[in-house]
């Protein structure tokens, strides 16, 4: 299998205004996503998942600091502080942004959006790009009358489907979807996610879905990585993460969201994630963890769980499950 995305000890930080301190959004992420699979990054707000997604999509702000390495289809795009997305951004990787409302220019018709993007990426003419746009819009269940419309005439769900169509239309190999359903009503969420996973399978595209919703992630993804405080703390097949979470954080995350059909009681997570300004060597979940022991003052590596492609960053993963 070809690795679509491979991150090696990837650190991304943001300098504050006074240039005094750096907030590390990701503190050493190791990640490998195979070609054609649907991979999901789950985590709470501020755990660095959006930063990781924008690093992969090539839209990190210029003031972001990077360390470590990131490969996309074996091309080195982040090499320590150097970033080179030539030939990758927009051509191999495409992003489905978080807010469809602010991601479409209100003064451009949907057809113009397709035209400008296809012209820049593939050098197509107006009539060719309109043809391609029609084809992809019909894939996401929109008629060709949408091409003439301005974004404000479409509903939020339709706007998000337009963005999915735009992302697919440039025939990229990887689609990074940064919380594509966060601004969409719950009744449309499943529809959009199912559409996304169906299209990803149809076009054999690698999907990197970033979400805080473990339930929706489990529906469409082959593998899940759970992030906490800038690090991947658990990664494995969706079924094994959902049924047998090995990290206390994953387990508490699963306990805190409702599952349709079951009458379990919801338990909120106590405490807050640690500040990412200062570096620390202890396990990032130590202060909130009910399983903590002396050994937790040393951060564990990603430990493989026996006979499964399942890695967990916890000393006591056996007791947790």
């Amino acid at each position, binding site marked *: 299998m070809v690795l679509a995305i491979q991150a090696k000890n990837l650190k991304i930080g943001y300098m504050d205004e006074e240039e005094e301190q750096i907030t590390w959004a990701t503190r050493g992420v190791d990640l490998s996503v195979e070609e054609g699979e649907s991979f999901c990054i789950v985590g709470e707000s501020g755990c660095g998942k959006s930063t990781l997604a924008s690093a992969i999509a090539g*839209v990190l702000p*210029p003031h972001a600091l990077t360390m470590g390495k990131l490969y996309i289809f074996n091309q080195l795009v982040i090499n320590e502080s150097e970033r080179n*997305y030539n030939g990758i951004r*927009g051509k191999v990787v495409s992003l489905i942004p978080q807010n469809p409302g*602010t991601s479409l220019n209100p*003064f451009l018709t949907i057809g113009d959006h397709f035209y400008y993007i296809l012209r*820049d990426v593939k050098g197509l003419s107006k009539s060719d790009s309109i043809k391609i746009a029609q084809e992809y819009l019909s894939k996401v269940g929109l008629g060709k009358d949408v091409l003439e419309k301005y974004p404000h005439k479409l509903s939020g769900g339709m706007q998000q489907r337009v963005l999915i169509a735009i992302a697919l239309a440039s025939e990229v190999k990887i689609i990074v979807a940064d919380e594509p359903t966060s601004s969409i009503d719950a009744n449309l969420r499943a529809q959009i996610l199912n559409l996304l996973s169906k299209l990803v399978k149809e076009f054999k595209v690698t999907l990197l879905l970033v979400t805080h919703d473990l339930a929706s992630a489990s529906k469409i993804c082959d593998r899940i990585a759970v992030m906490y405080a800038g690090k991947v703390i658990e990664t494995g097949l969706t079924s094994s993460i959902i049924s047998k979470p090995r990290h206390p954080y994953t387990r508490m995350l699963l306990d805190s969201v409702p599952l349709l059909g079951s009458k379990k009681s919801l338990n909120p997570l106590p405490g807050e994630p640690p500040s990412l300004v200062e570096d620390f060597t202890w396990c990032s979940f130590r202060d909130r963890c009910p399983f903590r022991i002396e050994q937790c003052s040393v951060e564990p590596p990603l430990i493989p769980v026996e006979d499964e492609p399942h890695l967990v960053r916890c000393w006591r993963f056996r007791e947790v499950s």
Partner: protein
Amino acid sequence: MTLPSLYSRIMRRNLRRTRFKIGVALTTIIVILSIIAPLIAPYPSEGYGYVPANASERKLLPPSTQFPFGTDALGRDLFSRVLTGTRTAVIQAVSVILISLLVGMIIGVCAAYFKGLIEVTLNYFTELFMAVPSIVIALFLRLTIGQGLHVVIISLVIAWWAWYSRIAYVYAKSIVELEYVTLAKLSGLSALKIIPRHVIRNIFQALTVQAISDLGSALLEASAINFMGLGLPPGSPEWGVILYEAITELGIEAFLFSPWLVVFPGLFIFMTTLGFSLVADPLREDLDPRLRRRWKLWF
């Protein structure tokens, strides 16, 4: 939104309002007059300031069938002069507004788009020019480069571009934070593509409305500069100049014994400004919902 569709929408929505209709009618008349004035003026050469041969016989005649607006102190037909002045008025107002709009928009958008030092510098620059009155610049230009249409236009542009720059900056500032701009920027698309495609397209409507509502004020200020004798030379077909000549040659007596010299150019300035304002006000209310109620009682 394309400009023709915007135009048809504005027309459809506003033509029902009486004052918008009056404004459109006044503006249309003025614009048509400015085009055909030399053709319909009874004494075209006098319109351009040439003193007729029999000037001594027809000085300061009151309005009559031969001279509908009377004659001035040099015996020129005032109707021809005022009519020819329409063209100057339109040229002054439109060119001042267009140049200010262009300069202000580019500087304002650049300030909002390129952050940091460029933003600070351009904003200080803008604020500096906001404090400059046009008449002082006109005075300076009058003393250095002499008289002419360019003095009026340059001095007004210097005084006015900063306001467009500020409006463009304020609107563009909120646009550049939206994702379709930030993501395009981070994807490495050049500013030359992003600014026209995303930023200017979004602020253009607001700026155009502001520009249309400023046309009247631009004309007033241009007339003021000309009235003070700083802009166009005497004899030019311009309403401010006609007033200036009346006041310089006759003093206060102009008001008492030959009021037509003051009334007709003044009336044209008033009607033109009113026309521009009546067109612009409904447009401005469309753009700014907070203004929508306040002026409803006027007509």
